[in-house]
């Protein structure tokens, strides 16, 4: 029981390392990185590139979960922002000009920012349960995206737009830089200002923090708005990857992946203490797992079964840890905890 083993990131990191080891043993090419035209290629690079949308969504989800909430609408919001951006590019005369690109992206993320703020309004002002408040947009969002694209899958050809998820900068995929910038920004804002601590206090006890003078309403509201904004950027990246706005497929199940990534990273769904580093590790774990499933030759259709096993293992490990940590208190604490879970 050294200090290192007690650190809350030990288990997430161990899981990621174990996964990478399994991959490397089963196919040594996994860790090899080749350089072509000054650009890096390889499975690891693919994971860095493909994890960008999930990273953005999971960062937003972390903040929302820290306020004791949940945001189910992120997948639908991804579809909306992609639909808005591609419809603008499709309708403009010059799809390659930076101005068009800027307007398209700005419009896409503004719309999802507004939707995110709407979620926050429902939760923080009207006091509606987060699951149900965001379920509204989860149901309606894809319908709205379908209306924007007119029921079709809008496809465009725009070199700069394509660059965002498929281009390279200084040898690394551009999308990777996007996730790095997002991680740094969120970490700076949450950890170098008091905002992170205030967010945690709202998540641990909303009423007590309100009485202590924390403006919990604004913090919760902001959390959902940020989640919407990040989901918007994720939608732009996703649509740039396939160069199409597919209202049905964009961001499908990403809310579940994002929640899993957050939980994998050691942030409790009960709100309060959150770990951005944990979420980052969680995202890489999930993306590595997905690439593992593909490379092991498992039919993609059966992959949900693997995800189920991972979820079960993770939650069991976490609950086991709770048991070890408080084995004596267990009998008395468990009844209270279950009451909280049933909230």
């Amino acid at each position, binding site marked *: 029981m050294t200090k290192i083993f007690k650190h809350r990131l030990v288990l997430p990191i161990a899981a990621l390392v174990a996964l990478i080891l399994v991959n490397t043993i089963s196919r040594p090419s996994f860790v090899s990185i080749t350089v072509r035209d000054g650009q890096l290629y390889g499975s690891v690079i693919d994971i860095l590139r493909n994890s960008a949308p999930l990273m953005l969504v999971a960062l937003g989800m972390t903040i929302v979960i820290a306020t004791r909430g949940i945001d189910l609408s992120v997948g639908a919001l991804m579809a909306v922002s992609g639909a808005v951006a591609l419809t603008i590019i499709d309708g403009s005369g010059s799809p390659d000009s930076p101005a068009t690109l800027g307007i398209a992206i700005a419009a896409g993320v503004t719309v999802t920012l507004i939707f995110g703020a709407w979620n926050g309004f429902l939760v923080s002002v009207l006091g509606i349960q987060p699951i149900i408040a965001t379920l509204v947009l989860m149901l309606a969002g894809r319908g709205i995206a379908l209306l924007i694209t007119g029921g079709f899958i809008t496809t465009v050809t725009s070199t700069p737009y394509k660059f965002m998820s498929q281009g390279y900068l200084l040898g690394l995929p551009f999308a990777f830089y996007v996730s790095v910038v997002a991680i740094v920004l969120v970490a700076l804002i949450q950890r170098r200002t008091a905002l992170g601590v205030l967010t945690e206090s709202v998540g641990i006890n909303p009423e007590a923090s309100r009485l202590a003078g924390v403006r919990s309403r604004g913090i919760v509201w902001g959390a959902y708005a940020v989640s919407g904004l990040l989901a918007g950027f994720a939608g732009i990246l996703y649509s740039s990857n396939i160069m199409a706005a597919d209202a049905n497929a964009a961001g499908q199940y990403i809310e579940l992946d994002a929640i899993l990534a957050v939980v994998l990273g050691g942030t409790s769904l009960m709100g309060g203490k959150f770990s951005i580093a944990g979420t980052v590790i969680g995202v890489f774990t999930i993306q590595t797992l997905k690439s593992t499933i593909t490379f092991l030759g498992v039919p993609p259709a059966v992959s949900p079964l693997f995800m189920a096993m991972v979820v079960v293992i993770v939650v069991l490990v976490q*609950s086991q840890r709770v048991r070890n940590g408080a084995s004596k208190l267990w009998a008395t604490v468990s009844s209270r905890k*279950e009451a909280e879970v049933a909230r």
Partner: protein
Amino acid sequence: MSAATSTRIPEGIGTRVRRFTSRRASWIPVFAALGILLALLLAGQAYFGNFLTPRVLSSLLLDNAYLLILAVGMTFVILTAGIDLSVGAVLAFTAIMGARMLSEGVPVVVVIPVMLIGGALIGLLIGVLIQFFDVQPFIASLAGMFAARGLAFLVSLSSIKVEDPAILWLQTKLFNIDGWYLSPTGVIALLVVAAGALVLQFTRFGRTIYAIGGNEQSARLMGLPVVRTKLLAYIICGTCAGLAGVVFTAYQGAGYPLNGIGTELDTIAAVVIGGTLLTGGSGFVLGSMIGVFVYGTIKTAISFLGAEQSWTRITIGALLLVFVVVQRVIVSRSSRR
């Protein structure tokens, strides 16, 4: 409760209404849903002219029989303040498993119980995760959803046609009463609703469910069997999903592993529109039935209009919003806990 009962105003209609609303606050959302349903049906009749016909109304039940069964099971779980995201995937799994077994010549009297048990087992798995491993219902049922969807693909990647006459009879046999149609699947759905309503209203188990949803800690301290009841709620929900799989197989005449994607959301939406609070402890199976009919009416109206089906989801989302806000107002007014 509220001030209306203690003031000494002479008894008038207004007082009685107020007293009813304060004592039976949990019924108000159900009446609101009923009002919306009637308004939708009347608006449909006014707009289309041929909406309120026995044929359309009968098909409302027949087309949504599986959703009705799912909603009954979901009501049990939501009343305990839980949630079950797995029902759509369990429906797909049991349906494809049943179709596969039938195509390999297993008799139908074996297949249907196996489908029900399959659903019940996944429900049990979710319940065990929640009750014994302290996992949140959302996450536990998510695991159940992934497991069931994966199992469905494991059984078959493509659609399997069902030719068993007994299964097909469930949907094709139509009892015709003055132009009203009723298939055995509709009868099953109505029986499930009746059974669910009676169990929740008149059995010790049903009242324990409400008690747990109201306050689990209190229920435990009162000596109620919390563990057993919550496990049973998830088993019932899983079994209902299995039964919905049977009905859905009959309805489609085939099993397909991609069936029922998003059905869990439709089910939850229908239950919430029907007046069940997601915080648990308040709601009725009959309300869920009305919620399903509201959903079905919107779907029918949109197909009558010839509009895109994406409008169904938008309308359901908007309605969900209205109901959640209304419920929020009612809860904040009637309970000052």
